[in-house]
């Protein structure tokens, strides 16, 4: 499968246009799935820098807020309104720009690569969706909106904000439809989805359904007196109905990034451990469970709405707590798979493990946010909530993205990552920096700092300064990441021009091996058009550690090793 490395050229340049107009046309309406994915990665990084810049404005302001003046924003000509606008832009662009776009970039590369179809199913629809998202987000950044919290009606946003959101959500819906089409493109009658593809499809269906309701809510608002266009066709939306429509979309939204890469994370765990996932069958069960729960938990956002108590009990409390079960099961499967495997701890694996830790910590600290009065009083509407969302989005979701991107971007660029050292710096800077932000938010939330504020009493000041330092450290780590990518692109060592990335071949092989081990393998079912070894035990040698290697602690661990039967490791992967 490996070609002559002397002829190595970046894969990205394959069939690439070489005239200005050709490049421009390819940029505007990419038909090659790799080019389209690269375009999305580029925009995702742009949104990351833009939304990150707004974040640094907010953190720096809060770091100096105890003076009661608008320093340093005031020196820059900002006002209180400017501060809340920056908060709006940070949140909207980080979600719908950075996480959505990077998630789509990964998915649009993953599906054709893993399935072996290697074509965009509906390139025009996908490109149209992408450019609508770009237009919508640029409109958001120019909308002068202070109220990203659209569910806070009858607070009134500028009309341009609602229109911008409408355009952006239509774009996202088109991207989702095109991505689902990608999974069914040229689908063989006996073809089934691999784990990464199955997660992406589940995710797209959930988000696609959610976006429909939020679109209805936005259109209602535009047609109402709140819309600002003077149409006044519908009455001002009922607060509760609007909130329901908003949150039906917005809770799947927070899982969107994670589910996009959860299947890939399982693959990478297998890849690092050099053994199949502990239970492929269990993963298959978990996917629909996650779908049902992610569509159910949104009611916990409606804590002040007059809905029947039994509905709250079932959907808000039970469902919200219950979603921890499949998440913990996935992490259990990954950690059991990695356990005793002695993987190589590079930036990608470190990001993956830290993301898992982030999800567990973030999930556990979400419990007090449930509508449980006894504890809810303590932290609801405080900085505890931004602390929770930053753990889930920055450490967990973006952490998983970075883990995956260190594999996918070299594939797309056709070059090895320029500097592993910079990658480790990226990991340390991002993890430590965001941990400082999150810990500071959590603590001041616990002692009463209200969120969505511009100035706080001086007792919170040291913690806001800690958050400010952490935010700048995370920002610097992102600069290091970007520099590493640019250096990779321009100066990275060319990779052997494989027809199929190594992690895909091994992922397919290990997933199939898992089915063989579990007795669910069917010869008449295909998962890809790509060739890959079926039956690792036939083509590779199990690596069994001799008992003599077991020291004192090894002997202590031995019963657990036997419990999980994880002695065998397959010597696949070569390098």
């Amino acid at each position: 499968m490996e070609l002559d490395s002397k002829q190595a050229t970046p894969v990205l340049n394959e069939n690439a246009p070489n005239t200005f107009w050709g490049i421009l046309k390819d940029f505007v309406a990419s038909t090659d799935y790799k080019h389209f994915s690269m375009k999305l990665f580029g925009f995702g990084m742009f949104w990351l820098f833009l939304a990150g810049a707004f974040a640094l404005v907010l953190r720096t302001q809060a770091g100096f807020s105890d003076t009661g003046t608008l320093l340093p924003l005031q020196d820059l000509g900002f006002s209180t309104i400017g501060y809340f606008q920056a908060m709006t832009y940070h949140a909207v662009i980080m979600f719908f720009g950075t996480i959505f776009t990077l998630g789509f970039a990964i998915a649009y590369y993953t599906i054709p690569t893993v399935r072996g179809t290697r074509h965009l199913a509906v390139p025009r629809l996908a490109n149209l969706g992408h450019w609508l998202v770009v237009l919508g987000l640029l409109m958001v950044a120019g909308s002068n909106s202070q109220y990203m919290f659209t569910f806070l009606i009858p607070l009134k946003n500028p009309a341009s904000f609602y229109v911008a959101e409408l355009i952006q959500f239509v774009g996202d819906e088109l991207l989702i439809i095109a991505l689902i089409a990608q999974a069914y493109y040229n689908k063989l009658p006996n073809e089934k989805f691999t784990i990464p593809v199955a997660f992406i499809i589940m995710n797209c269906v959930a988000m696609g359904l959610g976006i429909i309701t939020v679109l209805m809510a936005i259109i209602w608002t535009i047609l109402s007196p709140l819309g600002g266009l003077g149409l006044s066709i519908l009455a001002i939306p009922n607060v509760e109905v609007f909130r329901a429509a908003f949150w039906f979309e917005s809770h799947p939204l927070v899982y969107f990034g994670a589910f996009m890469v959860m299947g890939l994370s399982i693959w990478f765990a297998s890849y690092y451990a050099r053994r199949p996932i502990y239970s492929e069958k269990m993963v298959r069960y978990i996917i629909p469970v996650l779908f049902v729960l992610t569509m159910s938990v949104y009611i916990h956002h409606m804590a002040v709405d007059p809905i029947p108590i039994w509905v709250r009990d079932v959907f808000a409390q039970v469902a919200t707590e219950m979603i921890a079960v499949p998440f913990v099961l996935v992490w259990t499967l990954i950690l059991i798979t990695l356990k005793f495997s002695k993987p190589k701890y590079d930036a990608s694996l470190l990001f993956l493990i830290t993301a898992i830790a982030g999800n567990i910590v973030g999930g556990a600290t979400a419990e007090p946010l449930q509508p449980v009065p006894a504890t809810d009083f303590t932290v609801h509407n405080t900085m505890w909530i931004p602390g929770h969302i930053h753990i889930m989005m920055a450490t967990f979701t973006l952490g998983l993205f970075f883990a995956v991107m260190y594999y996918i971007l070299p594939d797309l660029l056709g070059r090895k990552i320029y500097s592993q050292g910079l990658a480790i710096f990226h990991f340390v800077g991002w993890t430590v920096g965001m941990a400082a932000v999150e810990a500071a938010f959590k603590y001041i939330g616990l002692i009463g700092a209200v969120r969505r504020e511009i100035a706080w009493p001086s007792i919170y000041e040291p913690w806001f300064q800690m958050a400010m330092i952490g935010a700048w450290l995370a920002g610097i780590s992102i600069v290091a990441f970007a520099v590493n990518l640019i250096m990779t692109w321009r100066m990275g060592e060319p990779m052997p021009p494989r027809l199929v990335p190594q992690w895909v071949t091994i992922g397919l092989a290990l997933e199939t091996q898992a089915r063989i081990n579990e007795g669910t393998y069917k010869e008449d079912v295909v998962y890809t058009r790509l060739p890959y070894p079926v039956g690792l035990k036939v083509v590779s040698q199990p690596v069994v550690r001799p008992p003599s290697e077991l020291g004192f602690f090894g002997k202590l661990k031995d019963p657990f090793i036997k419990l999980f039967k994880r002695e065998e490791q397959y010597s696949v992967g070569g390098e």
Partner: protein
Amino acid sequence: MNKRRVLVIWTLILFLTVVAMELVFTPYDYAGYLQANNVGEGVAQADRPNIQGQYQVVYVTAEQWQFLFDPHVAGSPTVTVVRANIPVLFIIRSVDVTHGFYVNTEGQFATQGIQFGGMAVPGYTDYIVWNFQPTVYTSNFQSIYHVMCSEYCGVTAHGLGHPWMDALIIVVPNNSTGISIQSQMLAGNLPPILNGTVGG
């Protein structure tokens, strides 16, 4: 132990943990006032909470950008006075947009250990119950609690608005001195003291 058994047991452990947490929290599900915890919360329910024994009633009207108390200190509609150690039923509404009625802990004010608060949603009436139990009073027998809006409710063109939307709750001792101070500050318009279970 085979793989299937490991996974089934682990899944059951996780599931039962969640169920146990739910059972533990069940008594708190919008149950209104809990004497054991001295807290209560209403979630736009039609019924008021069941409160056993005496309680005081204070109406709170939230609007951009102030809290208006009834009863309130004469000439200061954003300041009210209640008695310590008698649960206070705050009946909260909003006349414009969504606000948060959040009683905060701050260094220079009295502390109740944790924060508490409720939402003021236009079109609905919420309630919260809290039993103020200050341990420290100033020389004039007052303990002050700071109220702020905890839900973003907009700012004016000049930047004032939500960040500066606040109020004060003054707690006086539940004795003749305290009642005298309360009566003087509220110009005789004391919060009604009710008894027993309140329904409908």
